[in-house]
């Protein structure tokens, strides 16, 4: 018991000492006792505000990067073409207040959404392009809206279709049949395509026909009830409750179950699978079973009344007016809220919306990206976490390699002197005279091409480590040379201590401060070198992120000017990390050798 008490006592004492706090004042004699050099250093360091600031910033960055990337692991191969260059901010689900409690119809586009209220007024929210901001004439009353990748269409109460947003690729060329039609039933904006279904059962479509190669059997025209699309194909629900795919392909989408034909009341498609609900409320899913799309939740099975599909998820409206979502849930789009009076549902891309009987609109799913996305639609913030971990790991391991070599070479060289010293120092000079960045580039260009990703990353660590040890070795050598002549070494020698023990137990602790300071500063320069290498494309290459190679793709004036979030955030992170490490190193040097501050 008493032993335990003693141990905790000594532990707190160590802690107090570590952080340079004063020990309890006992008596005047004790206070006048000398401080250990280590405590002096810590105290000097803590008193240096700039250095402490650097330490705190670095700890914050380090913790964020390592804890963050552990909590949200990055799928390095993930790409999403529909989410390219999204600006930072969480406004993708900020529903306009006018629509919030008075919604009639909403539709989700790639990074924006459109809605129409019960008075026929149009609203849109989210990330709007300049073309999308030019909304159509608001003197009309609208009844239906639909949003696509970067365009939207709306149906007026007079039965006219209007389109806005992207007007290229033939999206603005509304066919004459549609312009003349007065009985439009459904409008749908898809991936660079627009679709219209009339009450008479005809389907018309226009837009980029290369994006979606579909054809409608003439026999089908006049029998179409509803159309759904994803990025690769389109399906129609016929008036006799059959599901027909509009493109000839052998993809898993074509495996429409036979038993549901003639019995389907609603269909929905996402980019992995298609779902259909039959009259008995059973949901049938076919396509590719990713993200658990085939596992229809029990709450929906047998009670489903309507379906909607996003990009990788489905949302179902049940007969007792609740909503159920399943599928990919990385942005919470499959975590449906508990609703009891939902009247209609809508899903698209990474969001779902439900409108209840009073017109109250509820949404769930992707709100936006903290630091935006890059040109492949990858979340910049997530890549910064993983990239920071990669950058710091490479820097740390490179520094450890160079420190180990430097300490061993410098220690041996300084302690033994003579021809060993001469040989090792000549060798160090040869390594020093290798031009660093060019050689690193040559090595990673030539050797790196044959290696796997992990091999390449390890190779960069080793190159950095192997080329940066000589300056440390020289420093250690000088320190050991001077330490060798000190009395305590002579005393230790006289006591017959083994050489190994002498070097590592007696001399090394006396030069360790120099090693620590140098290692810190070398860590900063390793971060810089790795980033520079990755930046010019010879370090870590895509898809693995580092702070350096995230900036590689930002090397055009278009990106620098328009997609500022792609370079500003990684730049800030990298700069802050290097500055804080340099501040720490500088502060430590001042703390260890107060005279250096005088200089």
């Amino acid at each position, binding site marked *: 018991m008493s032993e335990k008490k003693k141990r905790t006592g000594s532990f707190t004492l160590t802690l107090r000492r570590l952080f340079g706090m004063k020990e309890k004042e006992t008596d005047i004699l004790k206070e006048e006792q000398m401080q250990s050099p280590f405590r002096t250093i810590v105290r000097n360091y803590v008193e240096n505000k700039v250095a402490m600031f650097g330490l705190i910033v670095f700890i914050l960055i380090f913790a964020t990067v390592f804890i963050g990337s552990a909590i949200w692991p990055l799928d390095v191969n993930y790409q999403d073409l529909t989410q390219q260059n999204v600006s930072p901010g969480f406004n993708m689900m900020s529903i306009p207040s006018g629509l919030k409690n008075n919604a009639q119809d909403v539709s989700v586009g790639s990074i924006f959404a459109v809605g129409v209220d019960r008075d026929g007024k149009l609203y849109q929210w989210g990330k709007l392009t300049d073309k999308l901001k030019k909304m159509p004439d608001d003197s009309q009353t609208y009844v239906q809206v639909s949003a696509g990748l970067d365009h939207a269409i709306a149906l007026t109460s007079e039965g006219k279709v209007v389109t806005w947003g992207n007007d290229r690729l033939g999206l603005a060329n509304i066919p004459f049949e549609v312009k003349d039609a007065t009985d439009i039933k459904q409008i749908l904006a898809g991936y660079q395509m627009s679709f219209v279904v009339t009450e008479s059962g005809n389907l018309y479509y226009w837009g980029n026909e290369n994006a979606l190669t579909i054809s409608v059997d003439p026999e089908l025209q006049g029998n179409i009830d509803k159309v759904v699309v994803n990025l690769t194909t389109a399906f129609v629900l016929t008036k006799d409750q059959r599901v027909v795919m509009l493109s000839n392909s052998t993809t898993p989408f074509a495996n429409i179950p036979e038993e549901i034909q003639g019995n389907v009341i609603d269909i929905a498609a996402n980019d992995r699978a298609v779902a259909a609900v039959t009259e008995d409320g059973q949901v049938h899913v076919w396509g590719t079973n990713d993200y658990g799309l085939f596992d229809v939740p029990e709450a929906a099975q047998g009670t489903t009344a309507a379906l909607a599909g996003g990009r990788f998820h489905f949302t179902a409206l049940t007969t007792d007016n609740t909503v159920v979502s399943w599928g990919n849930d990385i942005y919470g789009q499959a975590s449906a809220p508990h609703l009891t009076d939902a009247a209609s549902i809508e899903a698209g891309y990474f969001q779902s919306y439900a409108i209840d009987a009073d017109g109250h609109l509820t949404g769930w799913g992707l709100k936006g990206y903290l630091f935006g996305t890059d040109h492949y639609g990858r979340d910049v913030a997530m890549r910064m976490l993983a990239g920071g971990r990669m950058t710091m790991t490479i820097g740390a391991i490179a520094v450890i390699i160079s420190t180990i070599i430097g300490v061993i070479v410098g220690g041996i060289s300084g302690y033994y002197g003579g021809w060993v010293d001469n040989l090792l120092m000549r060798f160090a000079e040869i390594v020093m005279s290798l031009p660093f960045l*060019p050689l690193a580039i040559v090595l990673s260009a030539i050797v790196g*091409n044959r290696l796997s990703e992990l091999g390449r990353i390890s190779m960069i660590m080793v190159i950095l480590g192997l080329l940066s040890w000589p300056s440390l070795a020289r420093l250690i050598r000088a320190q050991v040379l001077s330490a060798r002549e000190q009395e305590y070494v002579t005393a230790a020698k006289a006591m017959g201590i083994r050489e190994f023990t002498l070097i590592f137990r007696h001399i090394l602790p006396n030069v360790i401060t120099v090693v620590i300071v140098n290692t810190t500063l070398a860590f900063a320069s390793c971060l810089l070198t790795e980033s*520079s290498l990755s930046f*010019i494309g010879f370090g870590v290459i895509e898809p693995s992120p580092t702070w350096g190679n995230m900036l590689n793709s930002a090397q055009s004036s278009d990106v620098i*000017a328009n997609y500022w979030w792609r370079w500003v955030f990684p*730049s800030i992170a990298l*700069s802050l990390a*290097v500055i804080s490490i340099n501040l720490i190193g500088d502060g430590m040097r001042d703390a260890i050798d107060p005279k250096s501050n005088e200089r």
Partner: protein
Amino acid sequence: MAKYLIKRFLYMIFVFFIVSILMFAITKAVPGDPALKMVNPNLASTDPARYQIALEEARESLGLDQPLPIQYIKWMGNTLTGNFGFSIQYKKPVIDVVGTPMLNTVALNLFSLILVFAITIPLGIISAVKKRSVFDQAVQVGSIIGYSLPVFVTAFVFIFLFALKLPIFPISGTATPGSDYTGLAKFGDYMYHMALPLIVSTFCSLGGILRYVRAAMIDALREDYIRTARAKGLREKVVIYSHAFRNALIPIVTIITSWFVSIFGGSVVIESIFLWNGLGNTLLSALRNLDSALYMAMMMFYVVITLLGNLLMDIAYCIADPRVKLQ
């Protein structure tokens, strides 16, 4: 001194050969057969026998059929006699490829060197004289930030501010495309294009050199002769600019010397961002296209430059400070 120089020179030659063997070995480790690039690949399907003969001939002309040591000796012999080989990327002898880039790199770095020292010397002196003042501390923190900022981050910020938001300077290249200026107008256009890379490379060098100048000046100010000068009743200006600064110049001169040599090196990052047609950019494109003759020649050039730089620094130290004896 002469003895030291000869010793040093012999040592340089030794290092040069070691590094050249290393470089040669690395290049030979490159996967792929350069001879394949010289033979028309269509021949393989139409006439396999002749393709094989053509391949053999190509190998022979490149000297690839000989054992590695002989290949090395041949290459070294050619390099030492000024024949650096043929660049497959530019279809020109290497010596003709590197001429213009070297001029561009030297021009950029020379102006940058002048600017850096024109800024850092006065700033360093003031901050050393007013040691521990607010000004000095601001300079200290500023210089840490300055040398911590990655070159490409600085470059992005300057491009964003001075080429895109305020379109003052051109972003890249060395001349306005399609222009046919002559004489002074051509030089003006050249300088106009150099502005941004020059500003960035100057900005990035400020921090490190500033700290160096400050430290040299503080050391000089602590010497006994400064105390003597003050004791004599000299004006503070005379003490600082005549007595202290002249002595602080000794370490500064040495660092200028080492820099002077690295002028030829060129910054890979700055040149690739601003598409400045310099040596760094040439090395990068040679590596991307696996143009071995070109990058080998450039690597050897870099090694010679580094070795010369070290030697020159020693000599400069010796000349600037007669107390230093080279052994």
